[in-house]
């Protein structure tokens, strides 16, 4: 920060003071105490991250240190049943990936469609009414979406595809509703990216005789591609960490299946189910949620870092 001390020096010379003016910076104790306190406030965020890493890491080590669990078993087998010593993580990962893919199949096309409509086609009046509606969608707590999945989406799927085809708990219902949840996140980030493309590009395209669609698809979207990719990646990261929808609608019980109409427990759903019961602190179950939590944390963290990297690296800079 810039402190105009030289001005004091100049004015001191012109005023020709009778007593000597000390031009040395005065040390104020209260000021430095306050600065230290504020620094500590900022440092707490680093402590939180360290806390997450240390806690998750330590308990995960305990998990892998127990005789029954080996890393080979963890990553190499396809059954998760801690009660009988089966510790293959893949059923949980597979269910998480299924719900995430289904959610993104909904959220990416719809989110990009909404973003292109709002940024390229909508009149200011349309935008000012539509954006708050989407923001409402983003502000609804996820447990409400879980309720929606269980009481609306699942019966709907069951009436379309047949009661025998679709189980009461299934990944399709959870994934579809999760897509609705992520839609406003993707659309608002994507719209910001599209809106950042300067108008001169669009006008140049129109001047060459391109239609509105051709301008949007072949000029504006490529120019904003880094922002769009970041929006999609953040959406994926959000879908992986999403908990309440899958806890309510995807089913309770790990199952290795690729059928979206069957029940399967995701990583987050498993953590909720295990910790929801009365959990004793020294059980393998307790340690296992930390191992799963660590995987979740690393996965979402790397996706978030990737999206920031993409934005930084591939952003087109216009004057």
């Amino acid at each position, binding site marked *: *920060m810039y*402190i105009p001390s030289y001005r004091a020096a100049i004015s001191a010379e012109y005023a020709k003071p009778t007593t000597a003016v000390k031009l040395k910076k005065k040390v104020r104790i209260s*000021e430095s105490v306050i600065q230290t306190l*504020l620094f*500590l*406030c*900022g*440092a707490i*965020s*680093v402590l*939180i*991250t360290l*806390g*997450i890493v240390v*806690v*998750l890491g330590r308990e995960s080590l305990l998990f892998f240190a127990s005789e029954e669990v080996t890393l080979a078993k963890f990553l190499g087998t396809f059954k998760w049943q801690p009660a009988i010593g089966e510790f293959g993580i893949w059923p949980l990962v597979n269910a998480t990936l299924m719900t995430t893919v289904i959610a993104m199949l909904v959220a990416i*096309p719809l*989110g990009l*469609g*909404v973003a292109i409509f*709002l940024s390229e*086609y909508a009149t200011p009046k349309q935008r000012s009414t539509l954006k708050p509606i989407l923001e*409402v*969608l983003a502000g609804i*707590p*996820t*447990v*409400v979406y879980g*309720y*929606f999945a*269980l*009481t*609306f989406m699942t019966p709907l799927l069951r009436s379309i595809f047949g009661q025998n085809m679709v189980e009461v708990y299934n990944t399709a219902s959870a994934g579809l509703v999760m897509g*609705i949840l992520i*839609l406003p996140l993707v*659309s608002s980030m994507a719209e910001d990216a599209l809106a950042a493309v300067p108008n001169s590009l669009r006008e140049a395209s129109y001047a060459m005789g391109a*239609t509105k*669609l*051709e301008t949007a698809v*072949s000029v504006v979207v490529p120019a904003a591609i880094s922002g769009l990719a970041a929006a999609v990646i953040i959406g994926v990261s959000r879908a992986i*960490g*999403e*908990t*309440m929808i899958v*806890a*309510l609608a995807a089913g309770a019980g790990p199952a290795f299946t690729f059928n979206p109409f069957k029940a399967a427990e995701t990583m*987050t759903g498993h*953590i*909720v189910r295990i*910790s*929801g019961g009365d959990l004793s602190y020294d059980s393998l179950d307790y340690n296992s*949620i*930390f191992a799963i*939590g660590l995987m*979740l*944390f690393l996965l*979402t*963290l790397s996706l*978030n*870092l990737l999206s920031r990297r993409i934005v930084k690296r591939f952003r087109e800079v216009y004057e």
Partner: protein
Amino acid sequence: MTAETGIQTGTLPDGDQRYRQLQRRHRRGRIWLVIFQASTIVGIIALAMLLYTIVNDSFGLVAIQNKVEPSELAIDGVALDELTHEQLFTILKANISKGVLARMEHEQPFDERSREDVLDLVYERVVQPTILSSWSLSDSILRRRAIQAEAARDFPQAKLEFRSWLSLDFIRSPQSPTPATAGVRTALLGSLWMIAITILFAFPLGVGAAIYLEEYANDSFINRVISTNINNLAGVPSIIYGILGLAIFVRGLAPLTSGTLLGISDPTTSNGRTILSAAMTLALLVLPLIIINAQEAIRAVPRSLREASYALGATRWQTTWFHVLPSALPGVLTGTILAMSRAIGETAPLVVIGASTFIAVDPNGPFSKFTALPIQIYQWTARPQGQFRNIAAAAIIVLLVLLLSLNASAILLRNRTNRSF
């Protein structure tokens, strides 16, 4: 596209051909416009369906069967609702066991209870209405005849009436194992306690960190680490914070969070699964949000204000405290309210740190066990019986109204104190 438009090849189509090509391009534009519009409409329909489902389950017909009909309790032709305090007490005495009566007397002497209170007791203990079946609002309106026939066939003793699951009683009464009498009082109070303590922790820390980053920090390595870190923390799934809270606040700091260290709670029965633990966990969760919002608000204060203050000889803290913060305050508060509304709907971390599922006593301080509104919704939704769905829907409406009023106050605050420099 190149081959079709032919622009790059240098042979521009002519006359009729050009007209047809132009038409084709415009048609394609119109089709895609419809697609883009449709995706927006799908979003709005989703929101509408969500609200419809909730409202649909919150109201509707129910089949109620009374153990004793109120008409049988009428004395000398005076209906039950019109009876005096003494008459109601006599009915109560005649119909319930002495032990239960003595316990009620012990809780609060009958002489001190109001007439309405005793009437409620008569309904609860003597009339004992049970809901046998419930129907959704849309069914109640569109298929009224069919429902009446169905109810007459299946529950000949029962009376069909319209019930609003969301009512003052629902908000006032505590949790209960029967859906008909259950309410959200304990959950609502738990949520309010929790959110108040969360703000107590998160607001000063968050604003302090934002001030540091915006007003004090130079571009050193450690400061860059701090600000990158805050952005990353905002993207960590909420359930991870729950796991962190479970390990640190519930287990690690159990003596502190259970209140035994301060001698408030009984060490033999208490554990770390308290309001305090939950609030500290949520404080960690919303801290990045508060910091990022506060940073933006502080950044919007123009430099000229600071320089004017420095020119008058103010120190950095004096400038920050007397000039920057007051100007940034509306923005900071708006961000804090939005963070609060995020915290109030957060469910996953609370499940993980072990919010209790069945609490019928009001929370009375930071060290009491608690349940929260979203936890209650989760519990009720997860149950298979239809009537729990009804009260889950009613609880969702309470939660959404709470969120809506928070957000509305944030918008009001922003609009009223919006000043331009």
